């Protein structure tokens, strides 16, 4: 099926030589120029010889953008978690706890990704004055050691201590685009996307809140509760459950000495997203919370649980969807968090429980 190409004429050969030379010159020139542009702009803040410009967060790719916040050493405290913790405003928490905190919670972050962020902080900035772990189901995933990252991918090279492997991952369209956005920011053409402390209001503006739409979002995929509950799991069954991420949590807390304030907070999922009481899922979550409680007691952490049926989590008007509460609720949570952690203030309306103090 293969044929050899026809032998070219001499004049053709000269023309083609010129063509190939021009092609290679442009290819190498543009590729090298593009790479140098990326290295000099350095949108991830990792290249030692990059331009000394103010690097703002101009992309919503939190997994790529947040390591530079840690490496900046501007913050002595951090929040890790998923999108359920992203609305906790660091500026408010700074005032309440007298710290400089960065909110490094990431959309749909798996437990391993959160643990990797904490590792980076501990190695780079040392033990935090305040650590808030926004707990979600990902920490109670029985296969967390297999479900380490999401479909988004995770740039582990940005989280290691090897500065040389980073160069391999920078020549790509995504990095070029973010570098161009950063230049656009300095030219006044592109806005800062996420505040440098990681805070971003990713839900729509309050003025656009539509109760009917929120109600539909919350209850759209809700299955009817089971008519017959299964036989409850026995103590032996519960003891057999494995939550691999809890070993990472335990190890991370063990590396933070006692003067630091460590808060483990189960964030308030709407009751529609909470397991139906009496089901195996609810029992497994209860067992997971009990084990986290034991870790908190062992490691001197405070544990608060908003993930319960309450006037907060039963009211559709507090939510955009089952996981994402509204901005005023985030403000309320930050204040309750400070009150509970600093002075043991219990919830007057039963919206949270202090499990360990």
């Amino acid at each position, binding site marked *: *099926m*293969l*044929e*050899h*190409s026809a032998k070219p004429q001499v004049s053709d050969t000269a*023309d*083609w030589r*010129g*063509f*190939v030379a*021009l*092609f*290679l*010159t*442009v*290819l190498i020139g*543009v*590729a090298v120029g*593009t790479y140098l542009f990326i290295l000099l702009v350095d949108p991830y803040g990792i290249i030692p010889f990059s331009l000394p410009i103010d690097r703002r967060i101009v992309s919503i790719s939190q997994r790529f953008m947040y390591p530079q916040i840690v490496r900046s050493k501007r913050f002595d405290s951090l929040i890790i978690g998923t999108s359920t913790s992203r609305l906790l405003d660091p500026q408010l928490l700074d005032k309440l706890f007298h710290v400089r905190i960065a909110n490094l919670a990431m959309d749909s972050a798996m437990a391993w990704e959160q643990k990797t962020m904490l590792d980076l902080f501990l190695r780079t900035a040392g033990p935090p004055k305040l650590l808030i772990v926004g707990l979600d189901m990902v920490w109670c995933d029985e296969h967390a050691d297999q479900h380490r990252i999401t479909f988004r*991918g995770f740039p582990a090279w940005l989280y290691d201590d090897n500065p040389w492997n980073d160069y391999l*991952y*920078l*020549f*790509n*369209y*995504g*990095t*070029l685009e973010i570098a161009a956005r950063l230049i656009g920011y300095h030219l006044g053409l592109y806005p800062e996307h996420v505040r440098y402390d990681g805070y971003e209001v990713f839900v729509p503006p309050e003025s656009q809140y539509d109760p009917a739409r929120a109600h539909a979002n919350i209850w759209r995929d809700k299955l009817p509760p089971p008519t017959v509950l299964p036989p409850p799991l026995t103590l032996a069954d519960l003891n057999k459950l494995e939550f691999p991420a809890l070993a990472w949590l335990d190890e991370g807390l063990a590396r933070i000495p006692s003067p630091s304030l460590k808060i483990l907070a189960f964030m308030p999922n709407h009751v529609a997203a909470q397991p139906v009481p009496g089901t195996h899922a609810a029992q497994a979550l209860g067992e997971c919370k009990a084990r986290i409680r034991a870790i908190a007691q062992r490691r001197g952490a405070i544990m608060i649980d908003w993930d319960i049926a309450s006037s907060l989590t039963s009211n559709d008007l507090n939510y955009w969807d089952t996981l994402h509460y509204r901005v005023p609720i985030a403000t309320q949570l930050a204040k309750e968090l400070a009150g509970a952690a600093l002075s043991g203030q219990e919830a007057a309306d039963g919206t949270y429980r202090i499990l360990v103090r």
Partner: protein
Amino acid sequence: MADPLFAKAGLHALNLGQAWSAVLAFSFQLFLDFSAYTEMAIGSALIFGLILPENFRRPYVATDIRDFWRRWHISLSNFLRDYLYIPLGGSRHGPWCYVVATMVTMGLCGLWHGAGWTYVAWGLWHGLGLAVCHGWQRFGRPMPKLAGWFITMLFVLAGWVIFRAASFTVAASILASLAGGGGMGGALQEIKLLIAAALVSALIPSAHEIINGLKKPHPALAVGAAALAVYCLLEVGEGAPVNFIYFQF
């Protein structure tokens, strides 16, 4: 877009917009996936001075089904023609022999794509189309090009439904939905993407069309090709490869 919609069709009937979105998306996905792969092989071989045979020549501009098979997976079509269709008698022994040879060849062509009855049915569907097309062309009454293209594309799209569906039940459900059987609601999804895919499929020539039309190297082409190569390098650098789907056939 195609995969979730075809999966959804296995659970309940799609509406009109969903059904057309699914079928169009899969048609472009299959062609662009396989065609791009073979063009890469052809281009890589050309760098070493080897000319591999052409495999696709803009099949979605075909104006009849015979034309389609002269443009789609040409290496397989040629193989089946030389080693199956012609030994079976081809068109040399009357119309019935032609029909039998065509149906056997295309039935086996379907089976070549996968061990499933839907693939065989897809092959026989195309065998039927080829036979009808052959018969029509023998009458000597040519169809207007635009009408020919429209009918051919409807025929090919219906074939892709049979080809892609997990079962005959799902295929029948999607075909019914394409005619509005699942409700007339919905709209085409990702319409810009579908238009882009249609333009790329119809306008970008194959490597063979390019080299055959290239009488003299032009500097603008060198610059354009280099810019395109840099873009490709940047895309490769993303490090997030998309699965090549045709490997399974």
